Each structure stands twice: as C-alpha cells, then as structure tokens.
C-alpha cells in the first residue's frame, strides 16, 4: 500500500519505530514506521527492519483471528518498512496504573491475563510484554499492542519470557507490592490458556527470573 498521500502527524516515538496518526476516510489509523538505527551497520539494520515488519504484520493478523484484542491490520508498505493498522482509543497502562483504584487495576490485570492466555494458546508469544505495550480502552478492555518482537512459539520458555517481562515491568516501574496484580493476571491467564499451559509458563517465568546474575542458591 502507499502511505505517501496520507496526512499523518507524529503520535508516539517508540524505541524501534515511529508511530504516526492518520485517517483513511473516517477510520483513525496508525502508521508504524521502523526507523533506521544509526548505531547498527546498514546491512544488519535493513535485515532486522524488513524481517520484523513482515513478522509483526502476519502475527498481528493471526492474533486477531485467535480472538485476542489487538489492532487490525490494514496494510503494509514495503519501501518504508511500515504497517498501517487501526488506532486503539485509550491510555497506556504504564501511565494510568498508578492512579487507578485497586479494584479497577485488579480487573484490568485479570482481563489482560485472559488476553495473554488466548495469545499463547494460539501459539504466539509477544516478546516485549510490558505495561507500555498494553492500551486500556475507556470501557476497561485491555488491547495488546506492538508485536515488533513477537514470534510463533509453543515453547514454555517463550511464554515464560512474556510473563516474566510483564511481572518485572510492573515491579520495576510501579508499586512495590505487585503480588495481587500478578495473582489477578495469573487467574485470567489460566482461564484462557488452560491449567497445563498456566503451570508450565509460570514455572518457566520463575526459572527465567532466577537466571539473572548472582541469584543466591537458596
């Protein structure tokens, strides 16, 4: 598709890509453009950007088919490594979690757990599941965004990375006691992923957390 004649305004600058907000007729759309990175060599940079654009678009589509709340793909533009997708109204969980009341936060994380469970049950892992990559709509529905690092995987290891990252992003940037939120998330996750996947993913998440440097053998 050709995005050159779409009026677009900068919307968000992520680590990997630039997001532009635009409109196709009455549709609010987001253009995700993978920027070239000065720090890496040209050939490596090209390869990473191209591969990730294709992977992201196809996985986003598969997640949608599996019933996960994610943006819908409208098209891709090869020349600029861009994906065009629907815009999700709402706020990023990273920004609104600290001001949210406890009940809403619990409910949000339980729903988020269900979404992640659906995704994993469909054989997809997100790869960068942090509170920055979850948008909550005014009605309270969490949407998972940014599939830039996602992959097809049915390995407990990869599901564990998702859960570990999500837990760590809550602990690293939010409240000190995060265990009730993590419990709510786990509950929702088990409901859609099933007991067996829940157990293996959680065990891996714990193992991954301990893989970091210098955990004492206790």
């Amino acid at each position: 598709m050709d995005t050159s004649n779409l009026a677009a305004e900068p919307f968000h600058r992520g680590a990997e890509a630039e997001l532009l907000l635009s409109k196709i007729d009455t549709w609010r759309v987001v253009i995700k453009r993978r920027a070239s990175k000065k720090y890496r060599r040209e050939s490596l940079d090209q390869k990473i950007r191209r591969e990730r654009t294709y992977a992201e678009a196809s996985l986003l589509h598969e997640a949608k088919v599996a019933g996960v709340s994610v943006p819908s793909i409208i098209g891709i533009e090869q020349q600029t490594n861009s994906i065009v997708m629907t815009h999700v109204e709402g706020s990023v969980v990273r920004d609104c979690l600290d001001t949210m009341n406890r009940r809403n936060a619990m409910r949000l994380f339980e729903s988020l757990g269900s979404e992640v469970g659906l995704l994993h049950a469909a054989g997809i892992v997100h790869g960068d599941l942090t509170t920055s990559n979850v948008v909550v709509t005014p009605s309270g529905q969490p949407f998972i965004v940014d599939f830039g690092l996602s992959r097809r995987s049915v390995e407990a290891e990869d599901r564990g990375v998702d859960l570990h990252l999500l837990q760590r992003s809550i602990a690293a940037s939010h409240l000190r006691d995060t265990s009730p939120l993590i419990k709510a998330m786990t509950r929702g996750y088990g409901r859609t992923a099933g007991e067996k996947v829940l157990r293996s993913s959680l065990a891996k998440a714990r193992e991954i957390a301990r893989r970091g440097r210098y955990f004492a053998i206790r």
Partner: protein
Amino acid sequence: MICLGVESTAHTFGASMVDDDDRVITNVNSTYRPPAGVGIHPRKASEHHAAVSDSIIGKAIRSSEGGQFDPDAIAYSAGPGLGPCLRIGATVSRALASYLGKPLVPVHHGVAHLDIAMSLGHVRDPLAILVSGGHTAILVHVDRRWRVYGETQDITLGNVLDMFAREARLPAPGGASVERAAKEGHELLNLPYTVKGNDVAYSGLLTAATNLMKQGANLEDVCYSLQEIAFSMLSEAVERSLVQTRRNEVLLAGGVAANSRLKEMIGSIAEDHDASFYPVPIEYSGDCGAQIACSGSLAFRHGVMVAEQDSHVTPRWRMDEVDVPWIPRT
C-alpha cells in the same frame, strides 16, 4: 572524611583513598594475568592478591608529601565475585579496621562500578548500563534500589569477549584484543542475534563466532561481526529501556565500557533521545580500588557499616538486593 577502599573480587587487587567530595586521591591496582588461552584460576588469583596486598595498600595510603593518610572508614568489596579472591580483600580490610579502630563498610562491586562512574561524571539519576565480566545489566534506580530493567540471561558481555579471545589465542585482556582485531574487519558475517524483551542472551553468539573462527573465517571479520552483533543486541535493549524509563541521563560503566565502538553505539542512542551520555573514563572502567573507596565513602556517610564478626563476603549478590539510598545524587 576520607575512605580507604579495597577491591579484590576477581583478577584485580586494588586500594584507593577517596575523600567526601568524591575526589580520588590515590588509586593503586595490580591485576593477575593468567597465561594465554586460560581463564582466571580463583586460587591462583587469590595468591596473587595475598602477595601484593601489603605493597598496594602501602602505596595507596601514602600521600604525595610523604606522609600517610589516616582513613576514617575502610571499605571492602564484599561481593559478588570469586570466593577465594573476595576473602583476601575482606581479611586484609578486617585486620586494618581492627588495628586502626576504624569502621568497616561492605561494598557491592557492581554498585561501586556505577558509583564511581556517577561521581566522575556528576550524574544524578541515570539509566545505567553495567557491562563487565561479572555483569551485563540495564538498571534504573527506584525507591532506594537499583532495579534491573534488562540483563543477560546467560553469560556477560565481558565473558563473550574474554572467552572468544581465549579460544582465538588472543592475549589478555581479551576485550582489548578483540576490539583491536575488529578494527581491521569489514565483512559482517551471519551470526545469531538474540534479544528477548529487554534481555539479551549471548551464549549462542559466542558458540557461533567460535565455530566460524575454527572453520577458518577471517579472524578480523569474526571479531568485527561479534562486536557488531553483541553490541547491537545490547543497544536495542538499552534503547527500549530508555524509552520506557524516560531517564535523561545514560551512564555506561564497567570494564567493557572501555570499548570505543560500544561507547559510540550507546552514545548515538542517548543523542537520539535527547539524553546526556556519560561513559566512565577509561582508567576507571575496569575493576579498581577507587570504585570501592568511592562507593564505601557514600555508604559510610549514609550509615552503612558492618561489625567485624559479621563482615562476610557474598560471592553471589544481585544488584537489586542492595539498598542504595544515596541516589539520586545531589
């Protein structure tokens, strides 16, 4: 207030005096060098430390006017590190503290890498990247502690460079040898690039690079590609962490911070996100007494002390298990 710091976590035995303006007054170090192709033998390294401890500390407490400094506190590297090495530094420090009747301050070696880099650069509250033989971590300080935002899931960046250099029979220190060879390399070879969220994993990369080298690929090209891929992986995780944490300072510390290509890459990311970049000066990047004295001085002023009978060493000790109340720095 003046603090004596004693470093002995791995290959380096060092002693240093730092005052309460965080000025490094003396910094004397001696590094154990294993033969080419061999890693650090913990016992041999500890024997080296025991042999040099007397003269290193003697030099560190001697002032330029010929007199001797009288430290108000004695800081030692309590971990993480090699047990036999840590115990030499702790034993010597304990003896000194007891003889001089001065308080003993336990220091976390990784925290100390960041403390000296922050003092020298006058950094307040950065996104910190610690890259060494013991650590590869991306950290931010929240509520009294360093929080690990991303880290290696297996071996450290320092391990990758050291172990590759050893396999390739390049002389120690491995990181410097690989960097020198990489400058002559031009072709980017195909090597695995593994980023898992904010974490990186290096063991597959090390194996693949070692295999390429053994299959006869040009050594300079392998070194060049190894650096490019390993550093690009870390840089990607750094950029993501910087965007998430929204810090406006980026600190690069630890032994691998001496690498100019890595500095160039991290610096470029900081610039892209309007953050100031503070790589630790090269003479303080590797393990040294000054980092322990600097961190010990800060800790002592915040009431951190340990009784002689409790002055243990902790070979495994995570960065996020230490209270560091002196950050943000003023």
